[in-house]
Each structure stands twice: as C-alpha cells, then as structure tokens.
C-alpha cells in the first residue's frame, strides 16, 4: 500500500479510536477507597509479602504499603495498577498539590502522588525519608 494512503489512514484511525474511547467514558481511573482494596491489588504482584500498613493518597490514585519485604508503592494505571518495592530513603520533590517520587526504573520513572494538605505531604515525605517511626522496618 502506498505510504501517502497508509500514513493518513493510520493517523486518522488512531485519533478517531482515541476520541471514541474517551467519549465512551473509558478514560476513567481506578480509585483506591479502602486499605483492603490496596492490599488486594498489591498481592496480585507481590503474593508472598504480608502487608502491615497502608497509606492512601488524597486522590486515591496512589498508596504506600508497609510489608515484611519493605516499603511498597502502588499506583493506578487506568483501570489497573502497577507497583514496586522501593528502597528508602527516596528522593521526593514538592509539586503543586502533591509530591513526585523519582524511581530508578525505566518503566516507572516518576510517580506523582496527589496530596492536598501540607500535613499529608510532610507525612509522606517523612515516610519516604525513612523518618516516620511507624513506617521504618
């Protein structure tokens, strides 16, 4: 097929599928509403760990878990989730209405955590700096 037909066809196809999906309400994201839901999603990728503590961000799109294998970060990917065990202390940056966490991971380079109040932000920063006694293992 000549490129001057294939190219525009692919482009228009991709854009229209994207618009259609969005209009049909498929851009919604999962929201963590309780600790059990977070633990359930965490165990999907880390079945061998036991979770002792959960902290959910203000938007419900991110959460921290304290496990017997270390501190874990789990976040929403559309209708699903991704998660990593993270080594503390870890670098954070203040962002508008939240903080961002830089992971040394090409598949998950930076995770933004939505935290509305200064109190919540400093709580997360303290956990991630390994300065929160109830979260240090």
């Amino acid at each position, binding site marked *: *097929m000549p*490129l001057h037909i*294939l190219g525009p*066809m*692919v482009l228009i*196809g*991709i854009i229209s*599928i*994207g618009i*259609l*999906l*969005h209009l*049909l309400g*498929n*851009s919604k994201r999962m929201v963590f509403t309780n600790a059990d839901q977070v633990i359930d999603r965490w165990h*999907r*990728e880390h*079945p*061998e760990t036991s979770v002792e503590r959960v902290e959910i961000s203000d938007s419900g799109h991110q959460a921290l878990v304290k496990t017997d294998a270390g501190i874990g970060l789990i*976040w929403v*990917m*559309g*209708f*699903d*989730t*991704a*998660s*990593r065990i993270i080594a503390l202390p870890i670098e954070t940056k203040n962002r508008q209405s939240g903080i961002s966490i830089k*992971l040394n*991971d*090409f*598949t*998950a*380079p930076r*995770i933004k955590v939505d935290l509305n109040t200064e109190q919540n932000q400093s709580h997360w920063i303290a956990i991630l700096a390994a300065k929160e006694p109830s979260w240090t293992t």
Partner: protein
Amino acid sequence: MDNLTFPDTVQLAVPFFILAIVLELTWITIKRRGGRYETRDAMTSVLLGAGNVVTGILLGFVAWGFYNWVWQFRFFDLGTSIPIIFICFLLDDLRYYWVHRFGHTIRWAWASHVVHHSSQHYNLTTALRQTWTGEFTGLMIVSVPLLLLGFHPAMVLFVGGINLIYQFWIHTEAITKMPRWFEAVMNTPSHHRVHHGRNAQYLDANYAGVLIIWDKMFGTFVPEGEKVDYGLVVNLGTFNPIRAAFHEWIGIFKDITQPNISMSDRFRYAFAPPGWSHDGSRDTSRIIKRKYVERNPEAKGKPGL
C-alpha cells in the same frame, strides 16, 4: 522467479483492523461484557502497532537481505504452486511456534517480544501492540530451513504475514469458545488468552500462531481455566510507548554492565530465561510456578504447574 512479489498483507489489513476494533468496542459498550477498553492503554497499543509498521519499513531490508542471501544456497526450488504455498504456511507456523517460544525463554528475544505482553488489557488493540526491535533478536535464522528447502523468501514473508493477520482476531474476550473441533486444532481466543496471562499456571504456555497442535506436540499447551490476569509478572508503570518498546533492552544493558559480576553472569543476563538473576533476587517463570505450588499445594499437577 527472483523478482517474485507477494502483496504486503499486514499493511493491506490495516483498514480491517481499524474497523474490527470499532466493532468490538461497540459490542462491549452495548453488551457491557466481553472485554474492557481503556483509552491510554489502547492508544499505547495502536501507537506501538504503527511504530512496528514503520520499523518494518525501515529495517525490513535486514531480514529480506538475509533471506535472499540464504536462498542462493537452497537445495531445491519448490516453485509457487498453491499446494506449495499451503505447505509453506504450515511449516512456517511451526517456525512461528519456535520463534515465539524462544521469544519467551531467551531474554535477548524477550526484550523484543515483551512489548506484546505489556498491556493489562486483552482486546483487539492488544494484537497491534507489537515490537519495534524484532530485527535485533536474530531469530530470522529460524527461517533458514524453510529457505534451504526451497520455499522462496517472498513466499516465506507472505505466509508469515498471513500468520500474524490470523492472530489479530484471537485477541478478544468477546468470543468465549469456538466449536470443539476448532478449539482442538486451531489457536483460538481462549487458547491465546492463556498465553497473555500472568497467572503462574499460564506462564510460558500456548505459543501457537495458527495451529494449537504444536503446543500439544511439544508439551506447552494449557487450557483456559481460572480467570486470566493479563499483563506482565512485573507490570509497566507507564503508558509511554517509547518506554514500552525499549524497556527490556535497557534492563539487559543495565544488568550486563553492572560491576563485580563474572563474564558468564553477564552472558546469562542477556541469554538466560527472563527473570534470571545472579543473586536470585528475581524469579524466572519456573520459580514463580514452584513458589505458587508451595503456597497452593492443591494446585500441584495442574496443567502449566
């Protein structure tokens, strides 16, 4: 015979791919079952598909040149009659089985193929989520026997394209099971859902392209049982298609260049099964299956475990 041309089937199929995606999406939206679509996930898939066509155009000459170079050493010239094309298709499907199996069991090839498994969804767009780096795996050598037997390079590429087009429609949850006889012989949505599962029992199963018989012959067939959890053992934390396309190559590079490991460990980081690590800090699918059975002893002996 050397200027033989076959139509580029994959490019010709693009309008049908787009139409079928719209139809599947409509079906799911109306019926409220039969699959899930997520905007960013689907966009990542189709962009990876488009990129696959682009890299195919840019790098296709590598395989084409290699095939033609091998062709000069052929033992026979089988021509291009319809029965020969059919036999070529069957043998190429066996070729596909092995390329696909190597794609899951050798990290160097997995680095390319992982892209296809990087979605947590399973719908027709997932079929288009294809590698940009297939030419780097070197697995084109698996086609050598076909060429030496006398199947023309253009025919080998043609039937390989038909094989990929067949696999498009099986990436759906809208079809539960096909008729019994069909499920017995052909690769189907049910068999291929298993292949995309990250459930312990579904890892390294159902490598088939068109015929499921190869998996039954070589002991890698697992029937669909428990609900499939789609995606990777460690799922991607990004929808960025460039990160999806290259992440495992970056992973290999980081692993083989780390300090204080032996040369043979560096070699294994590139060519051992995915998940191999010199310090046992990661799990291969074999270890994942073993640990699963330890946690769920009642599952021992089930297919795939």
